[in-house]
C-alpha cells in the first residue's frame, strides 16, 4: 500500500507540474518552454499508447511509428486538401473535401489506425518474442517506404500545413491554447488507460503477458485479448501523431521511420514499463536531454543511451519504479 501511495503522489505531482508549465514559462519569459512542454505531452501520449501493448500486454511492438505516422498524415492530408481548396475524392457521387477541423481529423485518425492495427495485429500476433518485434518493424517500414514513394503528398519532402487545424473556434496557434488541448487529451487518455488497466479486460491482458497458457486454460483466448489491446494502443499513438502534425505544422515520412518506433519505446522503458505515468516521465526526460544536452553537444544521444543502459541494468521499473517501488497487484 505504501508504494501505491508514492506512485499516486508522483502522478499527482506530474499532473500539477504539467498544469503549471504555461505559468512558469510566462514567469521566466520563455514562451518556448510551452512548445517544448507540448512536445513532451504529445510524445508522452504516443508512449501511453505503446505502453498499453508493451507494458500491460507484453507485446513488444517495434512498429508503432506506423500508427504515429498514420495519425500525422491524416491530419496533414485532410488539412492540405482543405487549405488548397481541392476535392479529396469522389465516392458514389458524393464529394469528399478535406477539413481543418480536429474533431473530424481525430476520429478519422482513430478509425484508420484501428483498421491498420487489426491488419498488422492479425498477422504479427501469431508470432512471439523477437519475431513479433521484427514483423511489426517490417510492417512499419513498408508504410514508411510507401510514404516516401507517394508523390501526391510530398513523398520524401513531407507535407506542410500552413495553419494549425481548428478546434471549436479556439485560436490553436496560441501556444497555451494548443498546449491545453494536448494536455486535456493526455489526461483523458490516461484516465481511460487506468480504468482499462483495472478492468476485467485489463486483468486478462496482464495475465496474457504473464502466462498465455494459463489464460487459455481458463477459457479466455489470448489472441482476441492481445489484438484488442494492440488496436487500442495503436489508436492512442495515432491520436498523438495527429497532434504532432499540428504542433510542427508539418508531416514527413520520418514519422513512420523505425527511429520513431525506437523513440516511443525509449519513453516507455525510461519512464517505467507498465506504469501509468511512465511514458510521461520518459518523454519528459527525453526532451530535456534533447533540448539541454542537444544545445551543448551533437552527441547528446550518447548520454541518453547511457541513462537508458543504467535504467535497463539497474532499474527495471524505469524511473517511476525507482521512485515508487515495484508494482503490486492486489
Amino acid at each position: 500500500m505504501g508504494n501505491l501511495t508514492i506512485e499516486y503522489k508522483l502522478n499527482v505531482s506530474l499532473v500539477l507540474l504539467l498544469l503549471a508549465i504555461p505559468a512558469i514559462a510566462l514567469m521566466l519569459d520563455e514562451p518556448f518552454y510551452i512548445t517544448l512542454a507540448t512536445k513532451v505531452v504529445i510524445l508522452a501520449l504516443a508512449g501511453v499508447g505503446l505502453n498499453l501493448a508493451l507494458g500491460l500486454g507484453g507485446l513488444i511492438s517495434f512498429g508503432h511509428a506506423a500508427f504515429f505516422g498514420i495519425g500525422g498524415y491524416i491530419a496533414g492530408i485532410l488539412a492540405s486538401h482543405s487549405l488548397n481548396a481541392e476535392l479529396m475524392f469522389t465516392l458514389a457521387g458524393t464529394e469528399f473535401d478535406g477539413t481543418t477541423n480536429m474533431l473530424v481529423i481525430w476520429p478519422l485518425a482513430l478509425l484508420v489506425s484501428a483498421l491498420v492495427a487489426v491488419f498488422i495485429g492479425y498477422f504479427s500476433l501469431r508470432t512471439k518474442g523477437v519475431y513479433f518485434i521484427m514483423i511489426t518493424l517490417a510492417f512499419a517500414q513498408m508504410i514508411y517506404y510507401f510514404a516516401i514513394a507517394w508523390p501526391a503528398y510530398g513523398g520524401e519532402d513531407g507535407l506542410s500545413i500552413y495553419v494549425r487545424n481548428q478546434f471549436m473556434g479556439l485560436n490553436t496557434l496560441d501556444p497555451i491554447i494548443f498546449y491545453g488541448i494536448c494536455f486535456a487529451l493526455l489526461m483523458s487518455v490516461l484516465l481511460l488507460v487506468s480504468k482499462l488497466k483495472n478492468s476485467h479486460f485489463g486483468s486478462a491482458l496482464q495475465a496474457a503477458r504473464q502466462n498465455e497458457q494459463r489464460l487459455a486454460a481458463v477459457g479466455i483466448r489470448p489472441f482476441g485479448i492481445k489484438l484488442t489491446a494492440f488496436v487500442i494502443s495503436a489508436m492512442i499513438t495515432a491520436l498523438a501523431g495527429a497532434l504532432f502534425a499540428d504542433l510542427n505544422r508539418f508531416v514527413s515520412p520520418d514519422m513512420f521511420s523505425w527511429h520513431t518506433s525506437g523513440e516511443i519505446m525509449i519513453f516507455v522503458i525510461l519512464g517505467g514499463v507498465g506504469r501509468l505515468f511512465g511514458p510521461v516521465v520518459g518523454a519528459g526526460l527525453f526532451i530535456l536531454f534533447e533540448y539541454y544536452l542537444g544545445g551543448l553537444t551533437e552527441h547528446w544521444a550518447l548520454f541518453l543511451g547511457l541513462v537508458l543502459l543504467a535504467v535497463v541494468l539497474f532499474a527495471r521499473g524505469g524511473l517511476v519504479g525507482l521512485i515508487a517501488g515495484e508494482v503490486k497487484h492486489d
Partner: protein
Amino acid sequence: MTDSILKITGLQKSFGMLKATDDLSLDLRAGEIHAVIGPNGAGKSTLIKQICGELAPDSGSVEFLGKEITALDVAARARLGLGRTFQVSSLAMEYSALRNVMLAVQSVQGSSFKFFKSLAADQPLRDTAMHCLTEVGLERRADICAAQLSHGERRQLEIAVVLALQPKAFLLDEPMAGMGAQGSQRLTGFLDQLRQRAPILMVEHDMDAVFSLADRISVLVYGKIIMTGTVDQVRSDARVREAYLGEE
C-alpha cells in the same frame, strides 16, 4: 456407451518416427475417476495435450459431452467445461492467489471484454473466487502473490482455479507431483469427494493415490493402452507387471 462424458477414439500422434499416441481409445464416464498410468515416455503428457487442445492429433477424434471437439482450441474446450490442471503449475505468477481464481471466474461470466468495470470492486466475483480458495483450504493465502506460494500451495491453487471453471470433467495432469506424503494424502481425500461434482481423468505416478482413488485404470505403454480395468484387474495383470510394475 451413452454415459461417456469424454470419449477418445483412434487417436494417433507421431513425432517423426516416434509414435507417441498409437491408435488410442478411452472414455470417461459420469461419476468416475479414470486414471492413466504408464512408465516415463509412455506418452501420457502427449495424450493430455491432445485432449485439452494444446496439440493436434494426426488422426482420431475427441468427443466431449457428445460433441466432437477435435478441431477446437484450448480456450474453447475449457469454456465447454474441460477443466485441466498442469503437471508443472502454470499460473499468473505476478497475481495473488485470489486474482488467479478471479481470472477463471471472469471467464465463466464471459466478462473479459468489459473495459471499464473495475475488477477489484466486483464483489460477487471476488466472493465466488474466495469460495473456491476456501474449498481447497487456501483462503488465508488469498492475497499472497502466486510466485511466493509454496509448491504445494500452487498445486492447491491450480485446483481452486479449475473449481472456479465449474467444469463438466476434470483433466488432472499428475496432481500429486511433488506434494509430499501429507499433502498427497489430503489431496487424495479431496479428489475422492470431487468425483461427485464431475468425473476425473487423471494421469498420475503416485500408485498409492491411483489405487485408492481410481474406479478404472488404463495402462499406457509406448503410446498404446495395453489394458483398461479395475484396480484389482490391473494389479494382477501379468503384462502390466512386466511393463510397469515389474520393479516393485
